[in-house]
């Protein structure tokens, strides 16, 4: 339609550019953290993540190997090594004095105190030569170097196996799977009754469910915690499964009822004529036909329970066998506020699963959103 209007090419360009700008704005925050999760701490604290793809220039202060590593070569004493300690890089300049840290070109011989001469090669190999044996603290070298882009998986290694993210991942799965599956079936039966059975009070029930859709969780927390404590499931997985199921039900019933109402009446009527019971109609006709709506709700509930912090904080404990990833992430933000490499990697482990689900099932998610927002 818009094409018929003879859209000007300048406008088309403006649309492309504006969209690109918007997309960049929305994606860059995530990319920033993703890139940072592959950098080590020194890199994160010395240069912005947007510099990570470029070679970075750094000033290193390197203390040469200790005196006991020296070796005698003829009449001379030598300390040798590599200023990068094998990590790689390229020396642009070096110095032997903090006042002139880039006085010498790589490869040249620099005179130091007490007749010592030092040299640093382009690849970082250094050599200190002295006519007498080295004693005490070894001298410092000042190196201006260029480090190529470098990425590491160490952060992920560390958070998965040392910082408890791996365990929290399992805990989150434990919370999420039953909390997603159980409400679906319960809601499906209720939605069927509300969609295809006539009984007094039906309209009132539907209105109540629409109302319950927006009741803030905050209202339920204290009474339910008291209830769970008195039942002895205050800090148990059973408690959080029930809580998530209860909180998810209004949306589930609402979504499924709206979908089921739209199913063709003839199919259900003819099944009734053929003598099928309501139970059979539900199980053999309604449930399979409602698959898209079931999938939509399943994705919602999965994302919501996986990403939830509030319900997990209230209904589960803080111990290693109950702490979920959002809870752990919150703890890390408090205890390791400055250690971005840990935070970034942990955050990405925790959002990886929802992102995969999101990209794989986007179609159903969109469909559910369209059906679920009260029109």
């Amino acid at each position, binding site marked *: 339609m818009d094409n018929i209007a003879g859209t000007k090419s300048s406008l088309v360009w403006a649309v492309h550019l504006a969209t690109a700008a918007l997309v960049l704005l929305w994606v860059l925050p995530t990319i920033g953290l993703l890139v940072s999760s592959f950098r080590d701490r020194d890199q994160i*604290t010395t240069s912005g993540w947007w510099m990570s793809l470029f070679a970075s220039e750094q000033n290193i202060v390197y203390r040469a190997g200790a005196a006991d590593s020296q070796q005698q070569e003829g009449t001379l004493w030598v300390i040798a090594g590599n200023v990068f300690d094998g990590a790689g890089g390229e020396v642009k300049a070096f110095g032997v004095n903090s006042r002139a840290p880039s006085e010498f070109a790589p490869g040249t011989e620099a005179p130091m105190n007490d007749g010592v001469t030092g040299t640093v090669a382009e690849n970082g190999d250094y050599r200190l030569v002295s006519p007498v044996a080295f004693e005490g603290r070894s001298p410092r070298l000042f190196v201006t170097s260029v480090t190529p882009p470098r990425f590491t998986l160490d952060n992920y290694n560390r958070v998965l196996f040392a910082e408890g993210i791996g365990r929290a991942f399992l805990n989150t799965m434990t919370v999420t799977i039953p909390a997603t599956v*159980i409400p679906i079936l319960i809601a499906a039966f209720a939605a069927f009754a509300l969609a295809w059975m006539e009984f007094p009070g039906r309209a009132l029930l539907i209105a109540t469910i629409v109302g319950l859709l927006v009741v803030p969780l*905050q*209202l339920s*927390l204290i009474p339910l915690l008291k209830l769970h404590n008195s039942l002895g499931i205050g800090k148990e997985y059973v408690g959080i499964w029930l809580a998530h199921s209860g909180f998810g039900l*209004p949306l589930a019933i609402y979504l499924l009822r709206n979908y089921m109402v739209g199913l063709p009446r003839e199919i259900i009527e003819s099944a009734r004529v053929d003598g099928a019971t309501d139970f059979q109609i539900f199980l053999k006709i309604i449930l399979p036909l409602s698959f898209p709506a079931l999938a939509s709700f399943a994705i919602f509930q999965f994302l919501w329970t996986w990403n939830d912090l509030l319900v997990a904080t209230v209904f589960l404990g803080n111990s290693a066998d109950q702490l979920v990833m959002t809870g752990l992430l919150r703890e890390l933000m408090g205890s390791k506020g400055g250690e971005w490499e840990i935070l970034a990697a942990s955050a990405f482990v925790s959002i990886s699963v929802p992102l995969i689900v999101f990209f794989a099932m986007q179609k159903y998610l969109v469909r559910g959103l369209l059906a679920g927002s009260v029109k």
Partner: protein
Amino acid sequence: MEQLFMAMATIVIGVFGCVAYFFFSNVVLDSIYPPRGPDAGRNIARAALIRPWLFLMPALLLLAAYLVYPLFVSIWLSFMDATGDNFVGLGNYTWLLNDLKFRESLQNNILWLLVVPALSTFFGLIAAALTDRIGWGNFAKAMIFMPMAISFIGAAVIWKFIYDYRGDGQTEVGVLNALWVALGGEAQTWLTVEPANSFLLMIVLVWIQTGFAMVILSAALRGIPEETIEAAILDGASPLQIFARIKVPQIWGTIAVVWTTITITVLKVFDIVLAMTNGQWGTQVLANLMFDWMFRGNDTGRASAVALVIMIMVTPIMIWNIRNARKEMR
């Protein structure tokens, strides 16, 4: 690992339990009122009166226990003291009115309510209008929609990194400070700067909610009858005019839906504030205040009173939703 087995076992038990309940309750009903024999007609009618309630029973029990019952208990607790043992009348509410932190939270919440739904809907509308016109629109949509899948805590980490502050002449690695310094400013600990910090927190939620607004509004835009647009084109309207005067007025209903849905989310916002500032430096909001009194203050009376204030703010939208839903059903 064993707890995953436990979870799986729960699923199996839960699913089979449900199916068994529905199956056997139906069998029992049919044996009490058999749909054959001399009284078949009357029996079927009677069973039809009871059967819906069999189907609804588990859902209604859960809803009653987890949403309706707590509502009344919360109202009750809000008139009780910290431990919930002694009646204090309106004590918690008079305390609320005079509490500085509560006033701050209320003000901030109102600010959030003004800013976040407006910006999210605005950006969502723009994104919807733009992405519907280009070939790679679906990719662009997916990218803008993506933050919806990220937890509030994950988003808080992402954005806290953007607002990061190093100072002391070190290189700024947070995007905001890097830009600020590049433009000639002095690096700031942004999250402690009032009142800018509240807006920085709002940006996080706008970033998350824009995708939602975009998806709904994009569907609405595509649903506009083409005749109206054709007529406008024939009358010589420019693309911008068509958008602002023809398309937008036709989707006001959907815009209102998006707006109210985001409003509800805003009223419940909690994780972002908790993780980024924990309500310090003038950024407190109601949901986090409630959490504070519940966990750190250990005062169920005050916490319930704050929760009820949130409920009262949600109520107009709730009524509006119910009225709309009833209109649609007729």
